[in-house]
């Protein structure tokens, strides 16, 4: 059996198992689609697109469609840590409900602080209940970095005053899979930028399980839903890259698929924002694009219903899906070669030139002294 056939069989087995579990939603996905004016045809198109995005062959679109319908069998617990909720926003704030938001609505979401109605003691009870009842089979999504300094005291959540560190560790214990949604949960993000007073870290640094990192500030709704779909469909993690990001989404650099790549190779660069080159769609490398160092599918998937993405809008990529991007990719509007070194406020080239100048002065002094030095006796 080839690997795709084996994966297909695994998917079928997984979906048969899910089908046997009672749905957690009273309204089926089909009904929800009808209520929102989404046709069956749209749904099939969406399944095919999702299949292609996950780098699976077309026959898998049947599985994707089925998995979408069975999403209400998979309990999802979504925790908010030190973050801005931008990742949830990326997923839910679309101008009209499309299938991605609908699936998120349909999945058995047990706990999500932004979306749930409960608050206070009731919310805490819901979380504890969900963690206990679905132990070993819930999907855990974490949004935001985990402050670890002072034993995690920089982040306390809820009426019981538990630290984020405590909550994440406990929730990770019984999770079937853990997804870090966004750069903060994946790598610490802006909170972990130098000097990082709260000791903010990515989830994978505080739990001892494999964590899927969905880098991006925010990651596109496609990457979030795609990862959820993959887990629902196969009950396992997708192939991951060097930073545990799914390869189907983070397998290529932004630079590789950029629509301005031809301009780069030709040596056509925007010199300043608003110049003729900028109007003509030249490459943004010299005004700080970090696409060459960033793995993500932004150029192909884009954001907000495939509408646009930073480079299309005329600003370079700032490498938000890479670890430590806030420090490593700075200054966002200059290329890395013009980066100012911490504490010195000069570029490596300036420092190099100064050392070179000092060397030349030293050599000159030595040469002049040599003229006057006593000749070597034979």
């Amino acid at each position, binding site marked *: 059996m080839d690997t795709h056939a084996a994966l297909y069989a695994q998917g079928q087995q997984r979906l048969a198992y899910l089908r046997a579990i009672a749905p957690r939603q009273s309204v089926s996905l089909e009904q929800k689609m009808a209520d929102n004016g989404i046709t069956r045809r749209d749904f099939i198109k969406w399944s095919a697109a999702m299949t292609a995005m996950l780098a699976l062959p077309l026959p898998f679109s049947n599985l994707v469609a089925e998995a979408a319908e069975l999403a209400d069998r998979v309990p999802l617990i979504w925790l908010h840590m030190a973050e801005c909720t931008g990742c949830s926003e990326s997923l839910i704030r679309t101008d009209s409900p499309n299938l991605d938001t609908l699936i998120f609505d349909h999945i058995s979401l047990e706990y999500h602080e932004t979306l749930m109605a409960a608050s206070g003691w009731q919310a805490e009870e819901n979380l504890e209940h969900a963690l206990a009842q679905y132990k070993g089979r819930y999907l855990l999504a974490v949004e935001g970095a985990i402050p670890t300094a002072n034993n995690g005291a920089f982040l306390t959540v809820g009426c019981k005053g538990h630290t984020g560190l405590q909550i994440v560790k406990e929730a990770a214990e019984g999770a079937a899979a853990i997804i870090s949604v966004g750069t903060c949960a994946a790598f610490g993000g802006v909170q972990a930028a130098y000097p990082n007073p709260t000791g903010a870290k990515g989830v994978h640094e505080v739990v001892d399980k494999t964590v899927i990192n969905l880098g991006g500030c925010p990651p596109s709704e496609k990457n979030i839903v795609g990862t959820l779909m993959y887990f629902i469909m196969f009950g396992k993690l997708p192939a991951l*890259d*060097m*930073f545990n990001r799914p390869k189907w989404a983070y397998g290529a*650099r932004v630079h590789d698929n950029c629509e301005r790549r*031809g*301009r*780069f*190779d*030709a*040596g*056509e*660069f925007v010199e300043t924002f608003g110049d003729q*080159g900028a109007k003509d769609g*030249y490459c943004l*490398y*010299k005004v700080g694009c*970090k696409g*060459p*160092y*960033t*793995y993500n599918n932004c150029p192909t998937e884009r954001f907000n219903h495939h509408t646009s993405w930073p480079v299309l809008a005329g600003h370079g990529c700032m*490498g938000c899906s*890479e*670890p*430590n*991007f806030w420090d*490593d*990719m700075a200054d966002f509007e200059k*290329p*890395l*070669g*013009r*980066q100012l070194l911490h504490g010195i406020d000069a570029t*490596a*080239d300036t*420092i*190099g030139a100064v*050392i*070179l100048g000092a*060397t*030349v002065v030293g*050599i000159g002094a*030595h*040469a002049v*002294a*040599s003229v006057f*030095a*006593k000749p*070597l006796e*034979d």
Partner: protein
Amino acid sequence: MQHQATHTRHYIFTPAIRIFHWLRALSIFVLIITGFYLAWPFLVAPSSTDVLVQGWLRFAHIIFGFGLTAVTIARFYLFFFSRHDIERRSFKDVMSVSSWISQLKSYLWVGHLNKAGVYGPLQFVTYVAISIVALFICITGLVLYANVYHQGLGGALWEISAWITAQMGGLAYVRVIHHYLMWAFIIFVVIHVYMAVWSGIRFKHNSVDSIVSGYDYHKDH
């Protein structure tokens, strides 16, 4: 008329060492110029998109980068396994305190430069250091290459490159380190050329010529 020879000739550099030296010099020269362009594309845009200015300069950078990598590997091999031990002999000087003192004094115009091998101790340690820098600039260069070119050699190097990228904390950091290391070469070259010329004049022996002809001359006593 018969002339009495006043100097004796010593064979110091094998053809391999000389050829690799100049290949390395050429590579470093081209890599620094093209590297500065890649970091900050300073040429004006061509009149046509068909002219791949960045593409060609990157191509040159890659070709000479592989040249430098090949030479670096070959030189590491030769240092350890060459039949001529003239380079390895310098290790004795590195281990000798008096040799260090006599070299440093000779650079400050006091006394002769006596050494067991072809290099003085400070010179030897500097060459070891620049060789290690060369090794790291080649490794970071190959990692950057594998992250851009996914077929063939790039594909073969992909797994190890991805691992190194992760260890270094991301591709941006690999790129930044690659850039920093270049400055070690620029500063090294300036000092190296000066010291080669200066020691030839000061100690009255063949210095710069040796790396072309392979021979050194010392006055008979």
